[in-house]
């Protein structure tokens, strides 16, 4: 029951939102979520309760972070000689 699933809010009636999860619609409670939620928003759902609104810009923020991770410290991550040694060993070190 621990799985959190993102879904898109279709409509809202008081504290109950109708949420679309990849084509399946369910009623989800909004008691717990701490941001205002509107139709069209994505929410992270957990056992029938929305625990977080996920705006698209924040999803993009995560992706930007990952790209940052890939760029970061490209030079000092490993010295060139270690890299070439690894390549010479077939790119993989045995255990």
């Amino acid at each position, binding site marked *: 029951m621990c799985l*959190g699933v993102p879904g898109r809010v279709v409509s809202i009636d008081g504290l109950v939102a109708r949420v679309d999860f990849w084509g399946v619609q369910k009623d989800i409670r909004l008691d717990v*979520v701490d941001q205002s939620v509107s139709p069209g928003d994505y929410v992270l759902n*957990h*056992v029938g309760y929305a625990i977080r609104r996920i705006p698209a810009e924040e*999803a993009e923020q995560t*992706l930007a*972070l*990952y790209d940052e*991770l890939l760029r970061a410290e490209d030079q000092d991550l490993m010295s060139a000689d270690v890299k070439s040694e690894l390549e010479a060993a077939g790119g993989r070190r045995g255990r």
Partner: protein
Amino acid sequence: MQEVAVDAELTFRDPARARALSARLEEEVHALGRDPVTVMHVCGSHEQAIARFGLRAAFPEGLDVIMGPGCPVCVTDVPEVDEAVALARSGIRVSTYGDMLRVRGTVQSLGDARADGAKVDVVYGVSQAVALAREIREPVVFFASGFETTAVATAAALLDDPPANFSVLSAHKYIPPVMEIVAEMPGAKVEGFLAAGHAATITGYGVFEPFVERHRMPVVVAGFEPLDVLAGLLELVRAIRSGVPKVVNTYPRCVTREGNRRAQELLWRVFRPIGGRWRGIAHVPNGNLRLRDDFADFDARRRFDIDVSSLWDYAPPKLVQKCQCGDIMAGIASPTDCELFGKECTSDAPVGACMVSSEGTCKIWLTYGGHPDLRNIRRRAS
């Protein structure tokens, strides 16, 4: 709006980024200059993502990612299941999450009790149990398991004026204290934790700062898409390599330092932490959540005289004594170390809790091919 968000969702499975992250992870592990490095995640959803997307095949040699006590059904202790079974057998209607149905207590599971005629309902969530209580006149007990994320839902339901015939048997558990126990376990090899993004959505990542300070061990909060897991592991190995213990949040689309304050407020208004047993982990100080006195009227333990002694007349089946769920949840053993795995113990006939739940390590491993560590296969192929 919809298209943007759906695209973003799919982007978290982008193969090019996944390959790049995987390659960078491999470089980091090599750069560490020793192996193996062992990290633990404490979430069934992480194990599911790892198994479902075949991520273990993308992990570099020298990196061991093990699953700790992150399956809420699995860590629900035997006496807690016994309480629910005893209640159900005494004629009280018990409703619970589907994966709790087959988890055995001393002798029986709630499913066994139902087969014997007890009134046991499977519900999707606590709201459904409350709705059931509104519909019928008899008492309805919700057997509530799960971590802080699920406990918040139970709290919200209790604060939303539930009917008087509704009550809760709380087996809720709180993750941060059990990380302390695992970190202090003798012989523990764990060098860092991958923390569950959903739980941290509630608690905020700030909750891990004292842990990092005390144990000088990094904690990285990660989400559940393939890229989330890879990026989380990459940050974790980088933090281990840097030698500077810290908390890193790689799930900013859901997790902030403070977390969901409203949820925390609801959680602690309804629950108080107490020490108690987790299956396989023994005693965890402040690891269990019990209803506060204000909610005594809705506390099944206070409302009903739960007598589990009648269950003690039975001897546990011999197979149960061989079950290694405890060691598996402590990260000491793998499912394939257990002689029952895939033989006497299967999804159809689970012996231990780890084979019951869709978040249990054994169930996940068996579902995705018995042994999801594909590195040996890849090595031969390359």
